[in-house]
């Protein structure tokens, strides 16, 4: 009976003590703010020393799409009155990551994804880092896995290059 009462009385005393300690320590801990720097940094490689090779795709920034560049992914879901745009976008993102990982280090440029009716066609430019047999295996593996995943025929059209097509150096 007596013990809990004293405990209840003691707690608020302690709390007040803590607060007073905080207020009396030296140094003001306020929040520091700097003005925001509203820079666009999407898909942009900034000018450097001049030794970095860029492909045409990397050289032009996103605001140049429809001016100097085309679209990497084409489907009809973005037209007026059509549905499924979000699903197609998610599919595209997955396919890009999947191919990047499956053909690791071999990708020369971005993937181009086309949809022709039901079919998904992935056009890729690859470097000749792997022997052809391995390429064929990976192509078959990707096609069958993605077809089963997306329940539609997926075709991979791969072209190989000796080295990346350089547009300019930044």
């Amino acid at each position, binding site marked *: 009976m007596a013990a809990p009462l004293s405990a209840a009385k003691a707690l608020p005393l302690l709390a007040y003590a803590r607060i007073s300690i905080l207020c009396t320590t030296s140094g003001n801990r306020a929040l520091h703010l700097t003005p925001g720097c509203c820079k666009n940094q999407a898909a942009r490689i900034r000018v450097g020393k001049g030794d970095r090779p860029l*492909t*045409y*795709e990397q050289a*032009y920034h996103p605001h140049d799409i429809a001016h*100097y*560049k*085309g*679209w*990497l992914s*084409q*489907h*009809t*879901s973005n037209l007026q009155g*059509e*549905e*499924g745009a979000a*699903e*197609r976008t998610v599919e595209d993102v997955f396919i890009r990551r999947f191919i990047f990982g499956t053909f690791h280090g071999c990708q*020369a*440029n*971005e993937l*181009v994804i*086309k*949809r*022709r*009716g*039901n079919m998904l*066609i992935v*056009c890729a*430019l690859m470097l*000749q880092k792997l022997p052809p047999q391995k390429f064929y295996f990976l192509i078959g593996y990707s096609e069958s896995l993605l077809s089963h995943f*997306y*329940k*539609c025929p997926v075709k991979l*059209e791969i*072209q*190989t*290059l*000796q080295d*990346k*097509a350089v*547009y*300019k150096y930044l």
Partner: protein
Amino acid sequence: MAARSGKALVSLGRLNGCGLGLHTSLSRATYATALTTTTTGNKVFPERGNRGGFARKPRRPPGDPRTEKMAVDQDWSAVYPAAAAFRPGSVPLPVRMGYPVNRGVPPEKRGNLELIKIPNFLHLTPAAIKKHCKALKPFCTEWPTALDSNAKCDEFFPIKVKTTDYVSASNSIRNPAARIVNLQVKLSSLNLDDHAQKKILKLVGDRYCKDTDTLTLTTDSCPLRKQNYDYAMYLLTVVYHESWKTEAWEADITRADMDEYIWEDSPSQKNILDTLVRMKAAAEGEEEAMEEEVLGRPEVQEYKDSVSRLKNEGENESSLLQYREAVKKVLQL
């Protein structure tokens, strides 16, 4: 365990090498490079990282692109039999695409992603289309010779049903908008008498277009196209049969509800009869109500026509002129 498994795999490799009979001396080595992870004890086979050694097959130089070996009169539909992305090694054209670098030219076709991005019609040359038509011809049937004009088509097939199928770039063929059925029929092709014509217009309301004399029924309330089609045909049948029926309460129609102005028993008739009878009475002094005789006069008939025309058609120059002439004649001005 590892040694045993290694031996088993090595024996497989040997068998395969004998079977191929091609480069038997190297076949052991090619399989060995895959095996060294398991057969750590065997030092006969070379190490894995030895790229420059005899064990590794020398890398074949990349061959010439197909464009170098193409004949001028080749069959192009064999190069591009179906829609495909642009392949610089298969298209013997010096195409360039892209914005040129400063003091440069547009990038060449090799490794050019822009050429791959755009849709191409390399698979649809005129020669290829001729082949397609030739292949499709056996499946086509002749147009019936009796239907050689639009009028004849309308005469034999007055009901026109429109449905739309939708294709989209997704893995689903379902589209809820595909269930909509549009049925169009010209009322002139239906057998309707005067009463039926007026009644069907009242029943159908907005769905009738006066300019083209077309009744349009659009059904989308059912989930399936077949159901919507059946419902549209049912609606047409019901509306047609209902318009021929005359209900008992249709006789209770009041003057205000009628579509057309009917001169008989109208205030206009009463007024003109009154006027003419009084004129006659004033002139001749007879007060006989010879209404039929008055009505039978041609001027009165003309007046009736002009008033009906004014009320039904509205006021325009010709109808007002006609009314003026009729009034002048009736009142003998």
